[in-house]
């Protein structure tokens, strides 16, 4: 029994470290600002970072496959702008929602195909995706458009009380992230598709030689990434009840940082979405602490997150060096 516990710890060390860091940061926050000890503050993390969580989940799979997707934030902006415009034009939300998902999925599919078949670096292709998406958003509207649709408002304003916690609540969109997390966790760990992603991230050539469906898997990973970006965009537009091309500025960096801090190797082949969840939570906690402080503004988040990312990358680099020397 002790052996099993020990090997569990060793095998999941990065994840456990991330969780511990989250607990520490949250604890520090609670000590500095006692108001943070209220349960709602914890649930606010899920509310405020709902879209970040969703796009980071999709991004995790992409990074595990040894790729990268910089377009995530752009697709959020595009989704918000497109939704707002379509809703204002009178289209029913029940049409708009699936349409947006379709759009994101298609963009992801196109990018994934270019990456695999034209053999262009994912970095460049998804960069282009980022520009294109934001650009299209700006074409749709130059200023932010309000969303006053009833369905959206319902989703945005309905509080769901949490059993067991008085005065604690979540909004409906905030639930999407955790649900998606569980689904993706299951897929990544318990399906052939998921294991293939890890194999590709470890060594794409070997995966091909092993007869795994590399092309199909890679393209699906990016397609799914696009889907998640659109989903995140929907959640984003619900929470802001507006759409604009300038939204989610640099959110792709927050997403990448969350994934890295969550223990996923930027070089691919290892990691999991649970870690990403905690990466997002850490990000959110740092932001909360700064908000409660009130005097330091948001740029300290950047430095803090940047420093944390650096530390994690440094550790990852060391691990890689050790592996190569073995």
């Amino acid at each position: 029994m002790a052996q099993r516990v020990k090997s569990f710890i060793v095998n999941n060390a990065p994840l456990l470290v991330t969780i511990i860091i989250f607990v520490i940061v949250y604890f520090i926050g609670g000590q500095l600002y006692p108001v943070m000890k209220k349960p709602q503050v914890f649930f606010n993390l899920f509310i405020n970072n709902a879209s970040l969580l969703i796009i980071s989940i999709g991004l995790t799979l992409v990074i595990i496959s040894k790729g990268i997707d910089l377009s995530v934030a752009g697709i959020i902006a595009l989704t918000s702008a497109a939704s707002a415009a379509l809703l204002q034009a009178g289209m029913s939300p029940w049409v708009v929602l699936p349409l947006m998902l379709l759009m994101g999925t298609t963009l992801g599919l196109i990018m994934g195909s270019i990456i695999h078949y034209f053999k262009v670096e994912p970095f460049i292709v998804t960069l282009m995706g980022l520009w294109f998406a934001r650009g299209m958003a700006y074409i749709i509207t130059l200023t932010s458009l309000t969303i006053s649709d009833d369905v959206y408002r319902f989703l945005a304003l309905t509080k769901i009380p949490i059993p067991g916690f008085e005065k604690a609540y979540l909004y409906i969109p905030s639930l999407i992230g955790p649900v998606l997390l569980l689904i993706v966790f299951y897929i990544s760990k318990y399906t052939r598709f998921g294991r293939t992603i890890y194999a590709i991230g470890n060594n794409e050539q070997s995966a091909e030689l092993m007869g795994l469906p590399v092309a199909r898997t890679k393209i699906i990973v990016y397609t799914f990434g696009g889907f998640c970006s659109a989903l995140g965009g929907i959640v984003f537009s619900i929470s802001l009840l507006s759409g604009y091309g300038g939204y989610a500025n640099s959110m792709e960096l927050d997403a990448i940082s969350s994934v890295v801090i969550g223990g996923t190797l930027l070089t691919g082949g290892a990691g999991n979405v649970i870690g990403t969840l905690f990466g997002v939570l850490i990000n959110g906690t740092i932001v909360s602490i700064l908000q409660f402080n009130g005097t330091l503004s948001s740029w300290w988040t950047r430095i803090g997150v940047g420093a944390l990312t650096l530390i994690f990358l440094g550790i990852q680099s060391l691990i890689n060096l050790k592996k190569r020397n073995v």
Partner: protein
Amino acid sequence: MMANNHQNVIEMKGISKSFPGVQALDKVDFSLRCGEIHALVGENGAGKSTLIKVMTGVEKQDEGSYQFRGKEVSIRSPLHAQELGISPVYQEINLCSFLSVAENILLGREPKKFAGIDFKAMNQRAEEILSELDVSIDVTQPLGSYSTALQQITAIARALEVSSAKVLILDEPTSSLDANETTKLFRVMRKLQENGVAIIFITHFIDQVYEISDRITVLRNGALVGNYDTSDISRFELITKMIGRNLEDFDEMSTIKLEAGKNIKEEPLLNTEQLSLSGSIKPFDLELHEGEVVGFAGLLGSGRTEVARLLFGVDQPDSGKYYFGGEEINNFSPLLSIERGIGLCPEDRKNLGIAGDLTVRENIILAIQARLGWFKYLSSSKQYEIADEYIELLNISTPSADQPVKNLSGGNQQKVILARWLATNPRLLIMDEPTRGIDIGAKAEIQKLVLLLAEQGKACVFISSELEEVLRTSHRVVVLRDKEMITEFSGEVGERKIMEAIAGTD
């Protein structure tokens, strides 16, 4: 260790394969019997990996017949070969170190239940496969947490599972294993043999060939030298087949006179006292004199390249002393060695030697420029002057000095690298396998050049698998075996004596 029956699983006849500029295989025959362990040996450039590539469908032969289990086959792809039952396991373990052992064995064909993987069934199956190999480990642990030997065995297990292999090809499986692990591996191989799997065992460890194989096929320079029952050929004969002349010729020629050195300096230019690097080469004493060519003889893996790397400063020794020009040296790096006047033509021409996209001219002046530093840039005309000088001197065949080096043939690329070092006017030039993969004409040129350099007063180290070459160009021959410098020969010595030293049967 007996073959079960005499039906040949694989029968290849007259296989030839050429690449631009190089004839990799020349009418090679190869046969593999059911349930035998068959060793495939030969030095670098012999054709082993090309033969395997043809066997496993990575390459297609230019001519020759290929029969698998009695039927002529045309292998479309590596996947096709695997489906037939031919499974290669390469030296670099191409598995996922972060996934579990069971996952690695069954990746792509995991047993399913419902919507996902049936982990219980998968782990069970993995344990079954491994127990057939007399191995029992916790298959749920990540692969990377196990020793290289076990990772190798996992790779083998996967190969077996994937294709219910009839033929298993192990390419240098023991290179990163210690004695214990090798024994483990051999046990697994014997078990497989009992189960009727035929194994091709590629290795450069002669001892292991004798320990485990039933038959041996020797390749040399792309041609078949012969195949033999292991029990019928002695070590000495085997090595002769690999790198020496025909045994009959030995009895005809009594001795070969090594080159008489006229201008060999008394004082050694470089000498080492018990210099060593653990894991790489055992402590050795070596003296190199200006005006003398010292040849290194020994098989692949005997430590020749490791010595060269220590001499040139790529590796740092961890014990012993190194003297150059009488002074003790404690700082090592390629640049420092170049400044002292040492040059190295590395064995791995492609990865460590040429900068493929750069031109001939740029490759040639690279080392002199390194020595001159960042600011004293050779003028364009000076660069062309130097490049042209060496293109002519070494007879480098290229349309112009501005041709990217990667477009040149192997022989000419080697000459470019030589030119690079000659341009630095070194006092000591170390050449590691300078004639590998080069046509006969160029080989002769380079050998002549080495002697010329010695005559000009340089110290030279000439490393080659071709014993003939080493003897023809050296004043003194140092023999290495199993990462150790064994002995030295000079003056009149017979090729046979050197072969015996290499084989370890003296």
